């Protein structure tokens, strides 16, 4: 590992290898389907892309693809939003107040090991098979990491900073708003990222179990009718949307925390 300065090369290099890998993968897929028995269970890449393309105008079930995606996204946003407005304050309270921590943490630790998806049957029993049960499941799935990260962000504020502020005469509430809150933001965002991906997973799972539209519904019905093309199209769409959501959040973070970009 010499200290060679080679930035230009690495960026171009990575891009080239990426395209090569992608092309290679598609090629192998196509060849495998064409020339082996794989075509009994697996469609060719063209079929899948054709399906994805056509589903923008042709219905899957009773709606076109974008509608299904939006239905899933809508559920995510409601559940995720709920998780944020409940989770972030709870986490911050736990981080800032010892009493708050003593009250909230035990209950949190009791409920936390239960995976979000395990709440699905109970949620359906309580809220029926409509939208509310899905909002609940998504909220529960996302809230754990949001609370955890908000807690750790608020509790790990550099004591040197708060000490300096106190010396300058700041009141507790000023310290909270000017120091604790801003310095917790990166950690809170880390929790929001994990929470978002948990939400996206939760909505897919919830839709697979009980839904009449949505991305998860697409792949489940594909399975029920043996339509592998539909399943694969659904999976690819799910993956792409997941990526998009993560990138959007990262962009937001860059705006709010420009001073603390952690490279990935």
């Amino acid at each position, binding site marked *: 590992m*010499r*200290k*060679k*300065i080679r930035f230009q090369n690495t960026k171009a290099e990575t891009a080239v290898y990426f395209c090569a890998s992608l092309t290679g993968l598609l090629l192998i897929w196509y060849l495998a389907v064409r020339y082996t028995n794989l075509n009994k269970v697996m469609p060719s890449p063209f079929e899948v892309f054709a399906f994805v393309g056509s589903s923008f105008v042709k219905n899957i079930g009773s709606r076109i693809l974008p509608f299904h995606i939006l239905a899933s996204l809508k559920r995510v946003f409601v559940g995720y939003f709920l998780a944020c407005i409940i989770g972030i304050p709870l986490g911050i309270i736990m981080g800032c107040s010892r009493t708050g921590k003593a009250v909230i943490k035990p209950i949190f630790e009791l409920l936390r090991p239960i995976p979000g998806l395990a709440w699905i049957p109970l949620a359906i029993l309580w809220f029926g098979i409509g939208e509310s049960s899905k909002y609940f499941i998504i909220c529960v799935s996302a809230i754990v990491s949001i609370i955890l990260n908000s807690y750790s962000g608020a509790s790990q504020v550099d004591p040197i900073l708060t000490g300096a502020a106190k010396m300058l005469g700041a009141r507790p509430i000023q310290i909270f708003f000017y120091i604790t809150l801003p310095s917790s933001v990166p950690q809170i965002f880390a929790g929001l990222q994990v929470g978002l991906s948990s939400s996206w997973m939760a909505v897919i799972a919830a839709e697979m179990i009980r839904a009449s539209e949505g991305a998860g519904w697409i792949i489940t019905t594909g399975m029920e009718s043996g339509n592998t093309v539909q399943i694969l199209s659904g999976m690819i769409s799910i993956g792409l949307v997941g990526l998009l959501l993560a990138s959007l959040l990262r962009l937001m973070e860059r705006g709010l925390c420009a001073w603390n970009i952690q490279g990935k």
Partner: protein
Amino acid sequence: MSKVEVNHLTKSFGKLKVLDDISFQVEDGDFLCIVGPTGCGKTTFLNSLVKLYDVDCGEILINGEAVDLNKHSIAYIMQEYSTMSWLTVRENVQFGMKIRKFSKKKIKEKTQEVLRMVGMEKFADYYPGQLSASMLQRVSIARAFAVEPDLLLMDEPYGQLDLELRFKLEDELIRIWQETKTTIIFITHNIEEAVYMSRRIMVLTNKPTKVKEDFENPLPLPRNVTEESFVEMRNRVTNLIKWW
């Protein structure tokens, strides 16, 4: 044939030229101290020697051939703390010996010997996370001596240590040098240290760095810092380094 031969060494980082056409030789068994202003490339030179950096121009030869880390037994004590946090002090010291494939018996003996030399035998089973910075530096020094190198490179190793320990280790280094006839290249800021230990002194200029002067230090060992001849030599070096 010299032990270490440096020919027209030039190294730049981008537009910044650090080492500018440096040439000198170090004979077998020599003790060379390199002194110079901060940032003049002393560490860069050592890194180039052990092939951590590629040079733009020029060459470094050991025993007349290009540097080969498998063949030539080199030990390098860096300026940065380099103890491995997942190994105990004892295991850290043994690290180099294991790579060099010393026998088990030898490893055991040498470990005891060097730990005693740097005064760390009580802490042999501690982890670096539990020790202070100067203790860790001692461990790095012990690790380097343990492999009985032909060529010992030291980059300001005693800078963080307290005076008493530093004097002790300086004397130890001279003793080991006389016993083992290792070739030593020692970088330091401390002029007194350089005059105390070295047999040769090389003074470097500011960037772009050239060799300002390269001369023998003929004072007989053991040296006394209060003697007139010592003070004279020290002043001589100080005057050469006056970069302010």
